């Protein structure tokens, strides 16, 4: 028990914001995983005699233009949003970390090229980068994932590179090299473990942005294709019903807001608990 109390996670859960955020995130994740059992209706059952119905006891958040249950579609939509955001950011963090670590450690031409590319993409908004890659790959679930992971790649490469640069001349690295350790061993055993925490936390915070970006692409009609539900696409079809059924926009919007705000609160609490604010921000 004492070991548990010393962990950063314990300190996060102990703050009211961190604890609340984690509880909400767990709830959303559980609802997504167990969607078929949690959702009151299947996501694609149409009922054309009950279209655009107000929220009621039978349909807590109302029905959409095909008479589908909005709440059920939000719960199933959580699967799309979370799966896309988590996959894209995991890929982005892993790739960015490899590139950034190699550039920071070895320096030279590779570092210069990578820094130039990263600086170039830095000034471009993520949505524009993602749109370029959706243009190449065509609309759909997988191209959304690829586009989002590329859009955030520069951020993680830059962050990892800075972390490695800060510690690569420490005495313990020199000692390891003098003892005959190879570059690969030094990077993997000595440098990355000391550099990884801020990158992981930044990845967590970026997951919130990725949920928004996924929803934005879905809203443009370039993400997951119907009838599969996604929060962005639901809002997009809701705009046509804005006078008739505003709840078709409000529901998924609140879902996104709740998920993203929780991720940000939890990430901020984690940064406080780990005391790494300077290391995450200063890049």
């Amino acid at each position, binding site marked *: 028990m004492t070991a548990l109390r010393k962990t950063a996670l314990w300190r996060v859960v102990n703050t009211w914001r961190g604890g609340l955020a984690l509880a909400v995130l767990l709830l959303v994740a559980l609802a997504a995983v167990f969607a078929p059992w949690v959702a009151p209706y299947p996501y694609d059952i149409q009922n054309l005699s009950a279209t655009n119905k107000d929220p009621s006891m039978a349909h807590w958040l109302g029905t959409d233009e095909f008479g589908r249950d909005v709440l059920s579609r939000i719960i199933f939509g959580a699967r799309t949003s979370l799966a896309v955001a988590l996959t894209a950011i995991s890929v982005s963090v892993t790739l960015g970390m490899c590139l950034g670590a190699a550039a920071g450690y070895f320096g030279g031409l590779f570092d210069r090229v990578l820094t130039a*590319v990263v600086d*170039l993409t*830095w*000034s*471009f*908004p*993520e*949505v*524009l980068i993602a*749109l*370029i890659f*959706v*243009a*190449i790959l*065509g*609309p759909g679930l997988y191209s959304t994932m690829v586009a989002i992971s590329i859009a955030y790649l520069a951020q993680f490469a830059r962050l990892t590179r800075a972390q490695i640069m800060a510690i690569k001349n420490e005495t313990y690295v020199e000692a390891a090299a003098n003892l005959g350790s190879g570059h690969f061993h030094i990077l993997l055993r000595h440098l990355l473990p000391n550099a990884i925490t801020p990158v992981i936390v930044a990845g967590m915070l970026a997951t*919130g942005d990725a949920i*928004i970006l996924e*929803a*934005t692409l879905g*809203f*443009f*009609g*370039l993400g997951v294709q119907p009838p599969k539900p996604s929060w962005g696409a639901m*809002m997009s079809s*809701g*705009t046509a019903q*804005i*006078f008739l059924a*505003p709840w078709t*926009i*409000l529901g998924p*919007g609140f879902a*996104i*807001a709740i998920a*993203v*705000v929780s991720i*940000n609160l939890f990430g901020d609490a984690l940064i406080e608990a780990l005391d790494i604010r300077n290391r995450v921000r200063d890049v």
Partner: protein
Amino acid sequence: MLNYSVKRLLLLVPVFLAVSVVIFMIIHLVPGDPIDNMIQIGSSPEQRAVLIARYGLDQPLLLQYAVWLRNLFTGDLGDAIILRRPVLELIAENLPHSLRLGGLAFIFSTAVGIATGALAAVFKDSWIDRGVMALILLGSTLPSFWLGLLMILLFAVQLEWFPVSGARTWTALVLPVLTIGLHGVALVSRVTRAAMLDVGRRDFVLMLHAKGLSHRRIQLQHVLRHALLPVVTILSLRIGWIVGGAVTIEFVFARPGLGSLLITSLAQRDYPVVQGCLLMLAMAVMLGTLLGDMVQAAMDPRVRDSLK
């Protein structure tokens, strides 16, 4: 300053080339034959031959790129497949709408952001400060397109103060500018507040207090002036983000503009238009960043020296 401007302009050349290569490659990377992606279905072999000659599609890729680049500089961006018009014409039609929206949103976020940030710093820890901080949290976490939809629901559908969509009257600009602006205000006022609090701790401020100047005068005349530098830095770094915001918000409000044109063309796979729009938007980001850097260099000699 002239020295810096020339060097900074020259730096734009490799950046432009890199971006143009990526955009040029789109038509070759999408599945299928580039000609099929550029031409209407059911075109005659003669029409295909004309297109092949125009873009040198039987030539090596590098040469094709050179031809494409040359056409670009003569204003030939190709023809839209679906709309059957020159891409340049479509862009010329839509660009003013985007410029108006982006420009107003930029002015709004800068002016209101600096004002609220300064207010929060001057009245630190008061209810004004707390209110501004809450606004910042809201503006930086809520997805902008949802914010736009909420504004439509409240001000256009419920209160009927503004039109729901389109760009027929100037009132149609209010909600889109506010939507993009709230994100900008959040960013600018956060930086302004932090910079002013930081500057306020310096020795010269203590000196001014010792001289007997009033708190308000010190804050507005001396601290704010020094704090503007980081604000300009962040603005020049994140100016591209106004472009991104405009793309999204145009689509939400069904306004004409480059963003709407890009997204519709993407869905219709009208690649010449997609290329043209992406190129224009990338140029907007690059020129915006350039302008920001110039302003920064004009204000801070250290920035000028960084390119020596």
